C-alpha cells in the first residue's frame, strides 16, 4: 500500500483513491463544493486545493479531488499558500453572488457562508456590475436562484448518474453559465428533492420547505421513512410543533445519501387538521349488550360522544372481555397495521393472545404503489408500508398473509363479533369489503391517527394514536433491517403512542404491571422473539441491524 504524507504525518493510503476523500476519511477536513462521494469527479470548483508534491508531479497547488493517491505523495492542506488560494477561490465564487443570506433558505447550512467564515476574505475587490441570472422552477419541487449558483454541477451529475434522467445541465458559458432544464422537460424525476440537499449553496431550494423556518431554530430527530418498505434513513426537522422537512440520513446499506420524493413529502398528514387528539365512543354500552342479544347496531348509525382516554381504554377492554365471556375468545379478532412499529406489533399480538385469547389475527396494509428503480440502483418499493416484514415476524408469516381473509370470513360467518383494529395508515384506500364487514360488527375498537381514517368510520371506540414522528420505535424494512425512529414531536391532545395504549390494555387485562418505554418493550421483544434475539436499541445505533444478526456473522456484516 502506498505511503503518503499529509501535513507531515505518514499514512498508508489505498492507491488511486482521491486525496480529498482520503483526507476526509482521516478526519482532516478539506473544504470542497463540487466533490460528492456519490458522483463522478468534476474538479471544477477549485475549493479543495492543496499543496502537493511527489514522483512525476509538478509540485504546487492542485485540486485534491482529482489527485489520486500514489506512493511518496506529500500533501499539505493548511499551508499559507493553500489558505491564500482558498481565499481567492471564494472571492471569485462570490463576485456575482447577491449576498442575500437574510432571505435565503440555505442560510445556516450554506457552504458559502461557512467557508467564507472560515477561509474567506472579508471584502471583495469586484467593482463591476454583477451578472444576474434566472430564478425559476426547474422541476415540480425545486426552484433555482441562479444568482447564488456556483456551477459546481452536483445537481447535473446527480440527475445524470443517480436518477438517470439528465434533466438539468449548464447552459450558456463563462460567467453567464447557469443551470437550467430543457424547455418543457422539467426535473420531475422521483429523486428530485435530493438536488436541493446536495446543492452546497442556496441555489436549488425545495419549494416544500421554502420560507418555512430559519434552519437554526429547528429541532431534529433521527428517524426512518415510513412510506415504503425500503426504510430510508432520514432526519425529521421540526419547528413549533410541526414537521417542516424530512432530510436523508446517510446509510450505505439502505438509501446511501438519498430519499425519494414520495417519502420526502409524505409528512403533511402528521400536522393535518384531521388529526385525532381526543378519544371518542359511540353506543358502546348498548353495543355490548345488544350484540350479545344478537341485535347489533352498526357503528355508523350512532352518535359520537367524547370520552377520556382512560375511559375509552376501559370501555375497550371491558367490552372485548364481555364478548369473550359471552361468546368465547373466538368471537374477538385483531387487525394489526403494517404501519405499527415492531414494539407495537409485539404488544398487539400479546394483548390479543394473552389478554383476549383471540384465535384470529390479521394485518391491514397500505395498497401497493408503483415500484421504481433508478440508474444508481436506488429503489422505491411497491410495498408502501414501513413494517410489513416486522409484522411477518411478530404476528407470524401466516397471520400477516392470510389472517385478514380469515378474519373477514369469520365476520361474514357470524363467528367473529368484535374486532380491535389498528390503522394509522395515511392515504389508505382499504378494500371496501373490509369496511363493509367491519360495519356489520357489534363492536369495533380502533387505534388511529385521523378523524376521517377509514377504520374510524366503522368504530365504536376510537383510541387516538401517534404518527411515526411522535413516538419512539423500530421498523423492520424489506431486507430485514431493524431501524429506529426517534420521537420528534408530542402527539396531539391526549393521543398517545400505540405502544402505550396497547400496554394500558394489557394492564387492564391484568397481564402487565406497568407501561414501559419503547426501549423496554424492545428488550422484552428481543428476549421473546427469536428473530430479534440479541438486538437492543444500543446496538441498533443510528444505522440499524439485520434480523438474525446476533446468530449469524454473515448477516451482522450486512
Amino acid at each position, binding site marked *: 500500500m502506498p505511503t503518503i504524507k499529509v501535513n507531515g504525518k505518514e499514512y498508508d493510503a489505498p492507491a488511486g483513491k482521491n486525496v480529498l476523500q482520503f483526507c476526509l476519511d482521516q478526519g482532516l477536513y478539506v473544504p470542497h463544493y463540487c466533490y460528492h462521494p456519490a458522483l463522478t469527479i468534476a474538479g471544477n470548483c477549485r475549493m479543495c486545493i492543496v499543496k502537493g508534491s511527489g514522483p512525476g508531479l509538478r509540485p504546487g497547488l492542485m485540486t485534491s479531488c482529482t489527485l489520486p493517491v500514489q506512493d511518496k505523495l506529500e500533501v499539505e492542506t493548511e499551508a499559507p499558500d493553500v489558505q491564500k488560494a482558498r481565499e481567492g477561490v471564494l472571492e471569485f465564487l462570490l463576485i456575482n453572488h447577491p449576498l442575500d443570506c437574510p432571505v435565503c433558505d440555505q442560510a445556516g447550512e450554506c457552504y458559502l457562508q461557512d467557508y467564507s467564515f472560515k477561509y474567506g476574505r472579508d471584502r471583495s475587490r469586484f467593482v463591476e456590475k454583477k451578472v444576474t441570472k434566472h430564478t425559476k422552477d426547474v422541476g415540480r419541487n425545486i426552484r433555482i436562484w441562479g444568482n447564488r449558483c456556483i456551477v459546481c454541477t452536483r445537481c447535473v451529475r446527480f440527475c445524470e448518474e443517480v436518477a438517470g434522467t*439528465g434533466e438539468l*445541465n449548464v*447552459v450558456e*458559458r463563462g460567467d453567464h453559465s447557469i443551470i437550467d432544464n*430543457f*424547455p*418543457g*422537460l422539467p426535473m420531475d424525476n422521483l429523486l428530485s428533492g435530493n438536488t436541493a440537499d446536495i446543492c452546497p449553496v442556496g441555489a436549488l431550494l425545495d419549494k416544500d420547505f421554502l420560507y418555512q423556518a430559519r434552519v437554526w431554530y429547528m429541532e431534529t430527530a433521527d428517524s426512518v421513512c415510513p412510506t415504503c418498505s425500503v426504510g430510508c434513513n432520514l432526519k425529521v426537522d421540526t419547528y413549533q410543533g410541526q414537521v417542516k422537512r424530512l432530510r436523508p440520513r446517510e446509510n450505505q446499506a439502505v438509501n446511501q445519501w438519498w430519499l425519494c420524493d414520495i417519502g420526502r413529502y409524505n409528512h403533511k398528514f402528521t400536522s393535518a387538521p384531521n388529526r385525532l387528539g381526543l378519544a371518542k365512543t359511540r353506543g358502546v354500552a348498548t353495543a355490548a349488550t345488544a350484540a350479545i342479544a344478537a341485535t347489533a347496531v352498526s357503528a355508523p348509525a350512532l352518535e359520537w360522544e367524547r370520552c377520556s382516554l382512560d375511559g375509552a381504554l376501559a370501555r375497550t377492554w371491558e367490552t372485548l372481555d364481555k364478548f369473550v365471556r359471552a361468546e368465547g375468545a373466538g368471537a374477538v379478532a385483531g387487525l394489526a397495521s403494517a404501519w405499527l412499529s415492531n414494539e407495537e406489533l409485539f404488544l398487539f399480538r400479546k394483548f390479543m393472545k394473552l389478554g383476549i385469547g383471540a384465535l384470529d389475527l390479521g394485518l391491514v396494509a397500505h395498497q401497493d404503489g408503483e415500484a421504481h428503480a433508478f440508474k444508481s440502483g436506488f429503489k422505491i418499493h411497491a410495498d408502501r408500508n414501513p413494517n410489513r416484514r416486522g409484522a411477518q415476524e411478530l404476528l407470524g408469516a401466516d397471520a400477516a398473509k392470510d389472517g385478514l381473509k380469515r378474519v373477514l370470513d369469520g365476520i361474514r360467518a357470524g363467528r367473529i363479533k368484535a374486532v380491535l383494529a389498528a390503522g394509522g395508515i395515511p392515504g389508505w384506500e382499504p378494500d371496501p369489503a373490509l369496511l363493509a364487514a367491519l360495519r356489520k360488527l357489534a363492536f369495533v375498537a380502533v387505534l388511529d391517527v385521523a378523524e376521517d381514517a377509514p377504520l374510524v368510520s366503522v368504530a365504536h371506540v376510537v383510541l387516538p394514536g401517534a404518527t411515526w414522528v411522535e413516538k419512539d420505535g423500530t421498523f423492520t424494512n424489506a431486507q430485514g433491517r431493524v431501524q429506529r425512529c426517534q420521537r420528534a414531536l408530542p402527539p396531539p391532545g391526549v393521543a398517545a403512542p400505540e405502544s402505550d395504549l396497547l400496554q394500558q390494555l394489557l394492564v387492564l387485562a391484568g397481564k402487565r404491571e406497568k407501561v414501559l418505554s419503547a426501549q423496554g418493550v424492545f428488550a422484552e421483544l428481543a428476549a421473546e422473539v427469536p428473530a430479534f434475539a440479541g438486538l437492543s436499541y444500543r446496538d441498533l445505533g443510528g444505522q440499524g441491524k439485520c434480523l438474525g444478526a446476533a446468530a449469524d456473522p454473515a448477516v451482522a456484516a450486512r
Partner: protein
Amino acid sequence: MPVQFSEKSRARFEWLLTRYPTRQAALLPTLRLAEEEFGSIGLEEMKYVAGLIGVSPAHVLGVVSFYTHYRRPEHGKYILQVCSTLPCALRGCERITDHLKKKLGIKVGETTKDKRFTLKKVECLAACDRAPMMQVNDQDHYDLTPEKVDRILDGLP
C-alpha cells in the same frame, strides 16, 4: 413535419460516428449537420439530435448554448460575429461593434426587425494577425474599419 434527417444526412451521420471514439463525441459535427439540414437549431432539432446521440436534451441545450456559432431559429439571415478577444480588442474591435450597433439600431445579441442581421460578440476566431475581424456567416473579414464594415454590409445580397 417531424424533424428528421434525410437519407443523405443520415448516412453522413453514420459516417461521423465512425470517426469518433464515442457517440457523444460526435455531438458537435452532428449539430453542424442538423444546422445544414434544418437551417437552424431550435428545440425540436436539439431533441432530435439528443435522441440520435443518446444524451439528454438538456445536455444538447448546454452544448448549443455554450457555443456562439450554431445558427438558432431567432437569428437573422446574416450573423455578424465580431471578435472581442484581446488582440482584436487591442486593435479596436469595440469601435467596430459600436459602429454596427449604431448602423443596425440593435444591441449585441439582437436581430434587426427585418430579420436580416444578428449582431454577436464572440471569442477569438483565430485570425488575430489581421485584427480586428468579424465573421459574416461563414465568411471572415479582416482589418476592419467602420468604412470597410459599411462596404461589406452594403455588398451583401
